[in-house]
């Protein structure tokens, strides 16, 4: 009986806390943009493939989306092909959860060399930049009320070459700024071919507009190589960052006090219950 009572009390307290959080902050996408580009230059026997491509802004209500792609295949003389596939995208979506936004940036670049003679080398680079203005709003709380912002995610990069020596460089640069352009949180990574994760936490307030910026750069440079008859090589670099930014209310001091009082009450009841046995 006593236990039931204390459980009910605990549930009530938790519900109180839940209710406080429920009427709290939301993230709203005010504006933003996605840009990016690809530049690749590769050659076999002095026959070059050069591609420049861009990222299209496919953003819609409540989300940012940019995506770019390229698929070229060049027939070489007297024989062979040089192919290049590229895809890059970045997104930030506030529509699935009012208090958080999922974001992502990534790219993949694949060069295929099917030829004999000499591979002249290649230089392949991708840039992606997503920028968003995110307003912290609330229906229940006053402007200026404190909120906590959490930004977390994982990043991952792969690169490989079946033949030519390559140098890969992959970076992600995440920066969140406040109204006065002051940096509230940032993360930079990552070692080529490696992975990393981040978890940032900072304070903000209802009414503040966060400037969110996520940029990605990937490059793959390959040295020249003599190709044997019927040689086939693939050179590739892939990178991806997945993350989310969320806001939550910082409980008011009164709520803490109520919660602590509740805990104390439960402790007292349990002690009484023990002494009764």
């Amino acid at each position: 009986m006593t236990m039931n009572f204390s459980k009910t009390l605990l549930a009530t307290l938790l519900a109180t806390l839940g209710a406080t959080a429920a009427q709290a902050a939301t993230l709203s996408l005010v504006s933003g943009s996605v840009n990016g580009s690809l530049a690749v230059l590769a050659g076999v026997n002095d026959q070059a493939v050069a591609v420049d491509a861009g990222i299209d802004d496919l953003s819609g209500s409540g989300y940012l989306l940019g995506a770019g792609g390229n698929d070229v295949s060049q027939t070489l003389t007297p024989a062979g092909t040089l192919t290049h596939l590229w895809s890059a995208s970045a997104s930030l979506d506030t529509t699935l959860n009012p208090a958080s936004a999922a974001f992502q940036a990534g790219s993949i670049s694949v060069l295929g060399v099917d030829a004999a003679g000499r591979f002249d080398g290649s230089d392949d680079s991708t840039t992606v930049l997503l920028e968003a203005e995110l307003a912290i709003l609330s229906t229940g709380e006053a402007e200026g009320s404190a909120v906590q912002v959490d930004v977390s995610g994982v990043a991952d990069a792969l690169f490989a070459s079946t033949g030519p020596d390559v140098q890969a460089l992959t970076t992600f640069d995440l920066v969140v700024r406040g109204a006065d352009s002051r940096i509230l949180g940032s993360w930079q990574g990552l070692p080529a071919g490696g992975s990393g994760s981040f978890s940032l936490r900072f304070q903000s307030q209802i009414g503040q507009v966060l400037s969110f910026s996520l940029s990605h750069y990937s490059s793959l440079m390959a040295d020249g190589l003599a190709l044997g008859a019927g040689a086939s090589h693939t050179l590739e670099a892939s990178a991806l960052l997945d993350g989310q930014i969320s806001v939550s209310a910082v409980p008011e001091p009164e709520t803490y006090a109520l919660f602590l009082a509740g805990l104390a009450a439960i402790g007292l009841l349990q002690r009484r219950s023990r002494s009764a046995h």
Partner: protein
Amino acid sequence: MRKTLAALAVTSLLSLLAAAPAQAASCSPGSVDGTVLLGSLATAVPNRCGADGVSVDDRIADESPWGNQAAFLSHITSVTMAMQRSGQLKPIERARLLLAARQSAIGTTLKVKLITFNDFHGTLKAGEGSSSNPGVARLSTRIQALKAANAMHAVVSAGDMIGASPLTSALFKDEPTIEAMNRIGIDFNAVGNHEFDEGKAELLRMQRGGNHPSDPYSGLGLPQDQRNGHFAGARFDFLAANVTEASTGKTLLPAYGVKDFLGNKVAFIGMTLEGTPTIVSPSGVAGLQFADEADTVNALIPQLRALGIKSVVVLIHEGGFGSGSLASCSGVSGPIVDIVARLDAEVDLVVTGHTHQAYNCLLNNRDGKPVRVTSSGQYARNLGDIDLTIDTRSKDVSAVAATILTTGTGATTAEDPALTDLVAHYDSLAAVPKARVIGTITQAISRNNNAAGESALGDVIADAQLAATRDAGTGQAVVAFMNPGGIRADLPFNAGGLVTYGDAFTVQPFGNSLVTMTLTGAQIKTLLETQFSGCNGQGGFNRILQVSAGFQYAYSAAGACNSRVVAMTLNGAAVDPAAAYRVTVNSFLADGGDAFGVLVQGSQRLGGAVDLDAFEAYLLATPGGVAPGPQNRIVKQ
């Protein structure tokens, strides 16, 4: 057991959050099953089975609903990165998939299934009221099948879900219908006129729960349908955008409800016809104001737009009259045509009711653009199967496709076992009161009108009302008038001609009481003139009152308003415009219902028995059984 349920709940919540179905192993690791298909776009990428028994195609889950293109592209980018890392995909294959993913346009639109019905009128039990009624368990089967096939769905009703119900629901204050809808899981019900039959307080009780203050048949539901041992109320929202409380100016119930489909919000604006006060007992709508339908919708559009909502469905308990099959809309007429013609172009779909018709129309809105307008008949016999295609970039509806389905009776459609115990419970509780024999008839008595608008059952009911109020102590009435809308079914011929309380209740489910008043002959003429469409405030169609024996008149349909009725006689003598007559009507008409405002002017009013009790007494007083008469009291010239 409880732990398992909790775990299941958590699992389903997580899978909802992930916006992708849980993936069970379904292929043999290392095997290849054709190539990956993204939507209808073929790729050359082999559909390899991963070490965990999930194929590339299954992991991409392109068939799942995606709230926007970013959601799908970020999903496929993430899951293919993991597959690239594990070797299930080669880099070049992943690049091909990502290029195809964008080209496929998956996520740019989202299909939402709307399952709609209207004028359900508490028809829980199959065959009750009419053998054509499939019952709520069959309706549920059809709804659950559509839900199961469409993760994105909403179930909505366009009014008259309750009120004018057969006994199995009505005897229990329509609580069984609310409980059945709770079990089916519906989202919104726009109020109709019949939601106001028993007044504002009773409507709010339907929404909020709690037992009726005095009716002993309230609160008798099964434990799982109750809350703290009482009627639980609706677990869906009643909507009434055009009904405001005169005292506060606020809507009695929410004007609209919003359902979010993976970040795509659809607003459902619900309302009843503006003319509700003219067809409901004034006591039922006291203190309430009913506003113009189109004006109400149009005024809400800017509010919705400010909330970022551009997908708008109107659920309106007002309709039209069409002819032809379920799929068609030939020669539609009626109030809905004019309402839609004044609607803001932001409205994407209009789900209607009230006329008990089934139609599937395209009607022009204010901008002259066609908008889909549907109605699904009555009594759960039909349901609307409607696909809204939402452009996830603009969040506006880009296409609407509707089909009106037939629910199916008998073996055509199985009964949903999740509903049958509820129906059986109330059926069994109602068995004793329902089976009580209250008299006999010599053959079935039909409510079908002859050309003049007179029915055999209407004559019998009017005679019963006159008989109950003819004596010196009960009103000294000389004539009774009965509204045709209050006669809800035929009186069937059972073995031995026995009439049960259940049969009689189905005919007259409203529980109106009789009122006897004094009218002049001139006022009686006004009463009869008011029967005709457009005359003295009468609505869009004729409402020919049923009259008691001894009263006769003729009318000329082609005549002008207030000059159609001629040759009124009472027991053979001409009705004198200046003389006073004692007239009986039910309380609905006495309060001016169905636009018969002249009855409000009647003097020396005396309240009488409940209509059904009067009917029972009349049967009892006719030992040989009541026979249908010749329908010769009203003559159409």
